[in-house]
């Protein structure tokens, strides 16, 4: 700070920790930004986050760097990204934290690009590519009593093959917001965040009591696909077909080596697999409620 400028409250910095399983992101940033960041990450259940994390990654956000009015984010002291747009800062920081969490946790957990919920002590994994309706389905399932583990990254302990929470808020896109608004009226008034690709997303914090009380065994693998106006069906799928579709949705099978692929195969051996063609959200929920009622 040069002596010719008046001190600005925005230049003050503070730090907060975001914990996801054994990963900790230490974020140093102006307090106002930290408050917004803190509000966009749910507090994970205490049993899922050890006191001493496996890995800590430090992010620092500086204002007026590299130009006046700009924001610069550094990871472990190395500049990562800069922008003159205030509304891009939180989505990018949020993305950077989740990316670092996936990188670090992928060395320890089997991480799948999937929603993950549980009911009656049985885990249900919803693996799918982006745009398949994972978040919409996950958010709707929470409203009918399912427990929450993640809307996008299913984390599985390789040894026990049980699901643990990858604590993040649900990111609802425009299409999902339309059908979720009756279930989450706050989505009507909440302000969207703008991703770098220009897409608007609404952050939805899971209720504090939505977490399961312990790791959940994977009982069901359901591959969802949003199919507008199609008849909603839930069809059994062979485990090999499920594996063929799960492998491309894995963040860490290669990172974990043989242990990762073995864990994935073993996880499927004890799971029932289905393909869900979701043309109607209510019908999809009914089918999943019937499935998990047994």
């Amino acid at each position: 700070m040069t002596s010719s400028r008046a001190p600005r409250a925005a230049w003050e910095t503070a730090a907060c920790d975001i914990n996801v399983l054994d990963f900790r992101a230490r974020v140093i940033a102006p307090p106002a930004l930290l408050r917004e960041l803190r509000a966009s990450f749910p507090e994970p259940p205490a049993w899922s986050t050890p006191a001493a994390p496996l890995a800590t990654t430090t992010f620092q956000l500086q204002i007026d760097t590299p130009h006046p009015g700009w924001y610069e984010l550094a990871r472990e002291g190395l500049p990562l990204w800069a922008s003159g747009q205030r509304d891009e800062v939180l989505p990018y920081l949020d993305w950077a934290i989740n990316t670092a969490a996936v990188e670090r946790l992928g060395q320890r957990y089997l991480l799948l690009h999937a929603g993950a919920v549980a009911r009656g002590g049985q885990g249900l994994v919803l693996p799918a590519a982006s745009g398949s309706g994972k978040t919409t389905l996950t958010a709707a399932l929470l409203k009918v009593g399912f427990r929450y583990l993640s809307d996008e990254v299913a984390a599985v302990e390789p040894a026990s093959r049980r699901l643990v929470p990858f604590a993040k808020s649900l990111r609802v896109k425009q299409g999902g917001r339309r059908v979720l608004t009756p279930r989450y009226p706050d989505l009507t008034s909440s302000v969207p965040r703008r991703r770098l690709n220009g897409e608007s997303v609404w952050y939805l914090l899971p209720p504090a009591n939505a977490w399961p009380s312990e790791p959940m065994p994977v009982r069901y693998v359901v591959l969802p696909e949003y199919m507008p106006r199609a008849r909603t069906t839930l069809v059994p799928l062979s485990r090999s077909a499920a594996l063929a579709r799960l492998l491309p949705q894995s963040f860490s099978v290669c990172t974990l080596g043989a242990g990762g692929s073995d864990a994935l195969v073993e996880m499927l051996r004890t799971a029932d697999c289905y393909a869900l063609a979701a043309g109607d959200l209510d019908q999809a929920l009914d089918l999943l409620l019937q499935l998990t009622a047994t």
Partner: protein
Amino acid sequence: MVVQDEGSHRIGGGAGDEVPPPRVPASWKPLHSPSVSAFPLDDELVLHDSRSGEVYVLNRTGARIWTLCDGSSTAASVAQAMSATFGLSYEEALADVRELVDDLRHAGLLRND
């Protein structure tokens, strides 16, 4: 015959498939490519090529042929083993082996030792 199957490839069709002319010599000694991992599940075998990211599913017969392709057996000896196991004539078995090995070779999953 290789068939696209919702994001993966299904290899090993049943009777009635159009059989292309065999291009793999009977003396060929097929060997798994090092970038391929195989996962047996139920009666099928899932192959994942880490180099291309492609995933393939072999049926029970295809899985048996894959297992026999160890770099020391010729396509002819694989066909003899298949003939004995599944009660096929040697000619039928050799045609099946050649077709599948050809598909797998083109997919980059097998190479000649």
